């Protein structure tokens, strides 16, 4: 799997696509692979505030629950409600139709803390090697 270069990535395995004042958030292919079959997704509602580095939802596979950490700070402007009905999309297309929320930034994105695709790939490589 290649990680799209238009995204930035967190060390918690979320991706974020920054577009001016808007950000779109999802979890990475590596994350979905580690989790296994995803069966449940809990996301914030439109209007909710999200804070960089803080949990903004949960994703559950059959065996475990994991928090989704927001890479950025702002308020939710859109939620992928189709994905809540079909959480298996996260396994099928984590970087595409499994986007989770869109956020209007209320603070500059902490770009310096986010990985580029290349850096993230290296990060995953090291994490998997451990």
């Amino acid at each position: 799997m290649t990680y799209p270069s238009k995204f930035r990535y967190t060390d918690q395995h979320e991706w974020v696509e920054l577009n001016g004042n808007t950000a779109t958030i999802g979890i990475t292919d590596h994350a979905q692979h580690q989790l296994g079959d995803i069966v449940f997704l809990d996301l914030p509602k439109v209007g909710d505030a999200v804070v960089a580095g803080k949990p903004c939802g949960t994703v559950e596979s059959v065996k475990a629950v994991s928090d989704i950490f927001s890479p950025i700070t702002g308020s939710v402007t859109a939620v992928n409600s189709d994905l809540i009905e079909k959480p298996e999309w996260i396994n099928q297309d984590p970087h595409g139709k499994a986007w989770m929320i869109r956020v209007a930034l209320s603070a500059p994105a902490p770009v310096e803390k986010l990985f580029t695709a290349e850096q993230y790939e290296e990060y995953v490589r090291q994490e998997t090697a451990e």
Partner: protein
Amino acid sequence: MALPSTTLRKTVLNETHRRMGARMVEFGGWDMPVEYSGIVPEHMAVRTRVGIFDVSHMGEVEVRGKNALSLLQSLTCNDVARLQIGQAHYTGLMNERGGMVDDLLVHRLGEEEYFLCVNASRREADFGWITSHNQHGADVRNASDDYTQLAIQGPRSLAVLQPLTDVQLAELKYYWFTRGTVCGVESIVARTGYTGEDGFEIYFAVSESERIWNTILDAGKAEGILPCGLGARNTLRLEAGMLLYGHEMNEDVTPLEVNLRWVVKLEKGPFLGREVLLRQAEQGVQRSLAAFEMRDRGIARDDAPVLLGDKVIGKVTSGSYVPFLKKSIGFAMLPPEHAAVGSRITIDIRGTRAAAEIVPAPIYRRPKQKS
């Protein structure tokens, strides 16, 4: 403080699982496969076709000789005297408080010859408990390291296994077993399982484990057999309403509190904990295990508190999403007045209150076989 590193125990098939790409986890001190292709496909293979599990971490205890029967009668709650040779039953290994040291299968091999299949995490505890109560002079042996145990489970398990064994599998009734050969190797073949499906559990000496494992997988290819891990084993048993030691049961929980009245034979005569069970049978239990289905969204996991207002009144003992029914279900230990079918309960799922409803167990029941 640095704790001494503990070495995980491995079944003889450990390398085989790793080579096949299984994801391994620690379970009860064992390094075991949790999944190969994924919990969902493995679960579905067992419900609709066939799956094979390495369950060699389970322990085996042999009890034989004069007084084998009286020893087992004194320590277990089911009536061992009712077992015919070639028959097995599910039971509890009891303590004097009516609690369960373990849940197990007792197989009657011969006149005074029994073979117990016990939980991996309880092997030593059970063996110690049985030997310390062996005033009867029976011969008790922990044979756990001598056996590989494989479970072949699912509606096509008979079709897959029959060409590999001289046992007439169709003649073997549920909870009966026989000695025979599997892939030419002396085995015990039992029609038992922990999945809610038809299937077999086979026990044989460890030496040819890999060959037998591979032969069964090859033989099952046309039927779509999948190697399965402990992840699917857990979701299958939960969906089928079966209990797991350490979750629904422990040394402080009695069989009557977890709906195991059917394995408690109070009339059989004295056994450890009988007085406690007699009292509970007369006066009722203070808490009761119940199966639930989530009514709100969410998955209630093990140990989630059950709330009444702001008060914790019970807890989830096992909870998961189950792939065949595609539901979020579980077991909870509750005050009896909240455990009746149809009762609504509130579960605290990591700070969010979610509604669930008590439902009859098992939640999944396999369709009747057409023979």
